[in-house]
């Protein structure tokens, strides 16, 4: 009897190891090696077809295989094994593909810049003293302040106004929300086209420079224009004295290229503050605001719709104006929603990569942490430094998420 129990236990544990340990590993390795080999030999179109078919169905094989193996265990001990089968792959993948690499990054950040030996906090010292890193941190803070607040304010205004539309509300919302569906790469390309600069005398095809050079008159009072040949054969251009010159917006560290700021008094602190605004960074922030306002709008408008209409009506009966209703009823009511959006935006800004990478490649003082992290890795092979920048992003994200989680918890409990 006792013997029987022991052999049962051995069998169950053997099956557990086989079904939950070896089998998933073999499943992963088989799939990995299969595709690595197929990539070499198959033409692309067949490979793609196979990838879609096998990639999407292979995952079920994992569970059916485990289920089949568990079937050999005694019925009485199967419940525990089934729990392992349902939960195991998730824990396995999270540990292997997320947790383990994150711990490695922490460890790597304490090694020298090439990731060879332990040096303690040397990389962190670099991160806060290096002149380029200082600018990156400044940019990141500017992005956080400007993007998060603009998205929230614009989202509130647009969501509040759209909510009152009698007709076309969903159409209007779709227009604002659309940038959220397309890729950040696409959005960046769109805005790069708007900011495009071409050295004179080429035609300006970017909207901003095009409008800029087409306005005004030259010193003789003749109209400026964007290289247009009129019907009479006369050429109207901007390469004349008095006409505005195009500006390479994304190559500007500050506003000093604008003629109105050219000869300003440096002792005036407000003016010199304005001149030193990093214009290219602000122009890139606009891309992100354009992309995410729709998200904020949708979330806010759902929250505004959830406000009981009696509350707003009561306010109206008491004679409160629209502005008063907005500030003293709507805003307090959706406070927790605003915090959720602020959290989401903060995390998104900290991870922002595509916009800067595609438009300026991080050059000319426009860089951000996420881009720097990849640069240190792929450009300079500085694994240690790259890991340090990643950890910095992580450290900034933690408090935001934790605060949000605590808040969410309080709400569900109350």
């Amino acid at each position: 009897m006792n013997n029987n129990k022991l052999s049962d236990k051995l069998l169950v544990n053997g099956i557990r190891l086989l079904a939950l340990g070896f089998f998933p590993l073999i499943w992963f390795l088989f799939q990995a090696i299969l595709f690595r080999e197929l990539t070499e030999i198959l033409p692309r179109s067949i490979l793609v077809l196979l990838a879609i078919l096998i990639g999407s169905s292979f995952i079920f094989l994992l569970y059916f295989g485990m289920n089949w193996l568990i079937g050999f265990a005694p019925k009485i001990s199967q419940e525990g094994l089934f729990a392992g089968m349902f939960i195991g792959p998730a824990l396995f993948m999270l540990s292997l593909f997320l947790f383990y690499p994150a711990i490695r990054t922490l460890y790597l950040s304490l090694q020298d810049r090439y990731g060879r030996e332990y040096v303690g906090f040397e990389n962190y010292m670099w991160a806060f003293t290096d002149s380029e890193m200082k600018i990156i941190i400044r940019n990141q803070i500017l992005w956080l302040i400007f993007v998060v607040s603009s998205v929230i304010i614009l989202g509130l205004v647009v969501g509040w106004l759209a909510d009152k539309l009698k007709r076309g509300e969903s159409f209007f919302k779709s227009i604002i929300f659309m940038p959220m569906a397309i890729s950040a790469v696409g959005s960046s390309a769109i805005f790069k086209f708007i900011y495009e600069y071409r050295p004179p005398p080429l035609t300006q095809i970017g909207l901003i420079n095009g409008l800029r050079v087409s306005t005004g008159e030259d010193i003789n009072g003749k109209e400026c224009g964007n290289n247009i040949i009129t019907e009479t054969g006369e050429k109207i251009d901007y390469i004349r004295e008095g006409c505005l010159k195009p500006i390479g917006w994304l190559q500007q560290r500050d506003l000093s290229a604008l003629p109105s700021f050219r000869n300003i008094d440096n002792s005036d602190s407000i003016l010199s503050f304005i001149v030193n605004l990093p214009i290219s960074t602000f122009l890139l922030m606009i891309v992100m605001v354009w992309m995410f306002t729709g998200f904020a709008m949708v979330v806010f408008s759902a929250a505004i719709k959830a406000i009981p209409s009696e509350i707003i009506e009561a306010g109206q009966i008491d004679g409160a104006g629209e502005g008063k209703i907005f500030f003293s009823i709507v805003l307090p009511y959706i406070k927790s929603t605003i915090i959720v959006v602020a959290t989401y935006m903060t995390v998104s800004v900290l991870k922002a990569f595509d916009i800067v990478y595609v438009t300026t490649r991080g050059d000319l003082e426009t860089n951000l942490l996420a881009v720097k992290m990849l640069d240190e890795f792929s450009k300079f092979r500085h694994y240690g430094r790259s890991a340090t920048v990643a950890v910095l992003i992580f450290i900034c994200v933690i408090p935001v998420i934790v605060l949000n989680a605590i808040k969410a918890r309080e709400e569900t409990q109350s």
Partner: protein
Amino acid sequence: MNLEKQKWYDKPVSKFILIMIALSWMLPYIGFVISSFRPGDSVKRVSWWSSIANGEFFSEATLANYSEILFAENLSRSFLNSFAVSIPSTIIPITIAAFAAYAFAFIDFKGKEIAFLFVVGMMIIPLQMSLIPLLKLMKGGAILFGIPIIPELNLNGTFVAVWFAHTGFGLPLATFLLRDFMMGLPRSVVESAKIDGASHLVTFFKLVLPLSVAGIAAFATFQFLWVYNDFLVANVFMGIKPENLVVTSHVAQLTVGNYGEAWHLRTSGAVISMVVPLIVFFSLQRFFVRGLIGGAVKG
């Protein structure tokens, strides 16, 4: 309350503000899409608004850019790659998450709280945190305490690497959302199936999965668009070899690279990259928004 008095927001001025906002949100696309239909040399010679103003656009409009970018520049291949990346990268994490969510919602087992805390805790890890070691793992394997768990695989540039990278990044949120959804299902249904002798696998496939379609669709739409639009993960794991490019990395390469002023290709390429997300977005808007709002708590 005087109802006769016109509300300020009914006045033309607030309508005007809304229309102006909508127009300014549309304006960036307009010039871009117009330029994608213009021959390359005209794009450089005349600005798009002038070409509309003087009618030149209507006589020169062409699809040549699209065929050039799709076939000569091989964006069609990148397009296929994008699907081979994003469809499994949506299905794999959702399947794994659905199984785990079922266990969290309906099976009692030891260490359930800790396991759930672990899964949810992973949400705070930004993907930058695990990017580089994960890349090394896919290439050179993983060694834990001297024991090689994963051998040297050299998976860089294969679809498998991207699938499992996205699986790792997408799993915590997917599990969290689906568990929430399944907790909302009537527990009695699952219990009565158990009494009838149905196994967990049968209950899962025949009962819980069909009832969770709405939750799964919400996350699937979100995840698909996320993966399809992703550039960072594809760039790191698939690399920049021409045959491995996905749509986003191809468009990024056109935009950032030394294509000089090939705006006719940049525009048409980017427009093609936007077609799929916009179709998904307009047909599954409700699911997408729900998934997105759920995703607002992710790290």
